[in-house]
């Protein structure tokens, strides 16, 4: 795991963190189809409100994937309210994806495919977006936010945006997130904590609830990413975030941060 901090350039944070992991080539093979999943949450909020993933963090990942020789870089999310086109525009993500040479994918209702999650205990059957299933590389780029149901919404919960029937997942959500993570197996998780939302999440709307941390966490381990991110909110026990606890119990990732090699990088 690598954590980059400081400076005022989100792209530099992403680049340094990914470099510390051994470079983007470790994750994105030449010619791969990459799908990047930011958090578009709701349309109508610009990135300063820390409701949606930082546009330059997403843009940096698009650039890195391109540099690694990806054949196609799609950026997709199924926002909870509002159209994806609107969300891409108001968040500012659409512009950065375009500038970096990626493609935005607007939700097309016919592309949700029924999927049986093998070995899953809680989320056995659901509709997943076909482009997610078709991608060779799945990069999850959540923004770190407060959330009343789960406590925080980080990487594992961000993956809900690949599903069609989202409200239905809320019952026993922490268990279902583990099943979904085991199914999607994100190649890389990059937690955007350039700005975090500390209250009234996940939809925010008040700059008073935003803290600027200029931090980016990158790791292949979806559980560890969330576990580390809880610290940004002053949590001492990552297991309080139940999807971390259950994820570690199921063995899809690690919550014992003290035993992990974590590269802390200071930028700028």
């Amino acid at each position, binding site marked *: 795991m690598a954590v980059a901090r400081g400076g005022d350039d989100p792209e530099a944070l992403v680049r340094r963190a990914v470099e510390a992991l051994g470079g983007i080539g470790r994750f994105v093979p030449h010619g791969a189809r990459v799908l990047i999943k930011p958090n578009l949450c*709701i349309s109508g909020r610009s990135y300063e409100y820390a409701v949606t993933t930082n546009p330059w963090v997403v843009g940096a990942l698009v650039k890195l994937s391109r540099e690694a020789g990806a054949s196609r870089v799609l950026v997709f999310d199924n926002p909870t309210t509002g159209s994806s086109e609107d969300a891409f525009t108001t968040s500012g993500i659409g512009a950065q994806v375009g500038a970096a040479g990626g493609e935005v994918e607007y*939700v097309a209702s016919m592309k949700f495919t029924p999927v049986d999650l093998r070995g899953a205990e809680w989320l056995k059957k659901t509709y997943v977006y076909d482009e997610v299933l078709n991608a060779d590389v799945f990069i999850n780029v959540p923004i770190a936010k407060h959330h009343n*149901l789960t406590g925080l919404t980080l990487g594992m919960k961000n993956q809900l945006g690949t599903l069609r029937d989202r*409200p239905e997942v*809320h*019952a026993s959500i922490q268990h279902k997130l583990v099943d979904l993570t085991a199914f999607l197996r994100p190649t890389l998780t990059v937690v955007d904590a350039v700005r975090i939302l500390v209250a009234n999440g996940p939809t925010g709307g*008040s700059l008073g609830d935003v803290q600027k941390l200029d931090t980016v966490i990158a790791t292949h381990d979806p559980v560890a990413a969330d576990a580390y991110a809880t610290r940004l909110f002053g949590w001492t026990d990552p297991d309080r975030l139940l999807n971390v606890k259950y994820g570690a119990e199921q063995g899809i990732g690690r919550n014992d941060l003290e035993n992990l090699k974590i590269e802390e990088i200071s930028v700028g």
Partner: protein
Amino acid sequence: MADRPRAFPRWKERYWRIMRSAVQGIVLAVFLYLFLRTVRGGVPPEIANLFPRLDPLTGLVNLLAAKTLVEGTALALITVGLTLIAGRAWCGWICPLGTTLDLFHPRRWKNKQPAIPDTSRGIKHFLLITILASALLGSLWLIFLDPVTIVIRTLTESVYPAIDRIITAMETSAYGVPVFRPAVSALDPILRPALLPATPAFTAGGVLIAAFFIGIIALNYFAPRFWCRYLCPLGSMLGLISKVAVFRREIAPTDCNNCGACARVCPTGTIQPDKTFASDPAECTMCLDCISVCPRSGQSFPAHLRPALWNAYDPGRRQALAAIGAAIGGVALLHTDQYLRRDLPHLLRPPGSRENDLLSKCIRCGECVRICPTGVLHPSVAEAGVEGFWTPVLIPRAGFCQYTCNLCGQVCPVEAIPSLSLEVKQAQVMGSAYVDKNRCIAWSDHQSCLVCEEMCPLPQKAITVDRSEFEGGAPVVDRTRCIGCGTCEFKCPVNGEAAIRVFAPGRSNV
């Protein structure tokens, strides 16, 4: 005979028919373009609502009922001016419903058409007077008969959603076949959201609206432009103005050989063979087909200064009194309707309009329904009673009022929904959400959910979490903050009726 100048050189005679069809086509194309681009990021809302603003009937009734002059409706003076010069040219050349009716005019019906007594032409005048008198009494209950609003409403709530469903179904089945997948993937971003809604459009009473429209078209079976001849209140208004229009059709008896071609081709049947093929300018749509078919160029459209003759079917004192009586009786009866009480629990109005006396301002044009990006606005079928028929209501199970959107007020041509800045709009209370604890899965089954709390878009959430009964937390609405946007009701995962519902604010809140 030979020394009488021809109205038009012969080479120009067909030209008028082509000209008219071309203008009709172009206007319909502009109309459809504006309709399709009446979306966020489309044409500016104050241009998107061009057609309702050009409509002098909706402008006039709004003025009569609301007793305030809305700046935007002044555009209708252009139409009035056009009518004063060229009679009902609006009907023949511009009206999107008239053009549509011209398209549905199969020639083979013509022989079978029964004779309809000319007195039936008086129905539209009766309707017009009833509408105007009702408006004076503050009620716009019959304005849904305005042709411009009929077309916008039908496109918005019937045609467009149906087309969307058909295309979505085709895309979905094509996407099921791997070979077609790339094609669907390439096609869909072109169609959506530029032409079709990003998310499936729901309708309220779309079938009813379609049936109404089909009914109007079906009446063409009995006579071409049946609607325009006998029923259209806007046609009546423009017709009465046309009585003093400058240019009117005239036939020179010396040039006429009584062939009757003009009477046969006249789409409104106003050319009367038994009256030396004269016509009533109030019924003539200035289509100029008669010129095209006249073998001897016997007709012209010279300037006149004296008003045209009053016909038997034109409104007399008796008819006018009867129509006014119908208005008084109708409005009185409507006021006995319990639905008129403004605090009906599910009568949710667009932001800012509840306090704005919507019933006496709204012309039922449907522009707000069209532009609403989430599909929460619909023409009321039953929610607002008979008087509020087809006025806009929020149906939160179909959509939600987006916190960062104020388009409906911007597109409303008559300020029935006030145009508000985002800040002011965000403070408008449309209703208030109430949790049904018996059905809420958190309260009744102790299941973790909190979707409503999660989705509440207010910067300081109006839904808070109560963890006293169940550690997963259950939603509680903070009445002082909730504005009734309906996002919670829209997103509630409970099947059927949501376990959190928005209720209209009571009279005390108005």
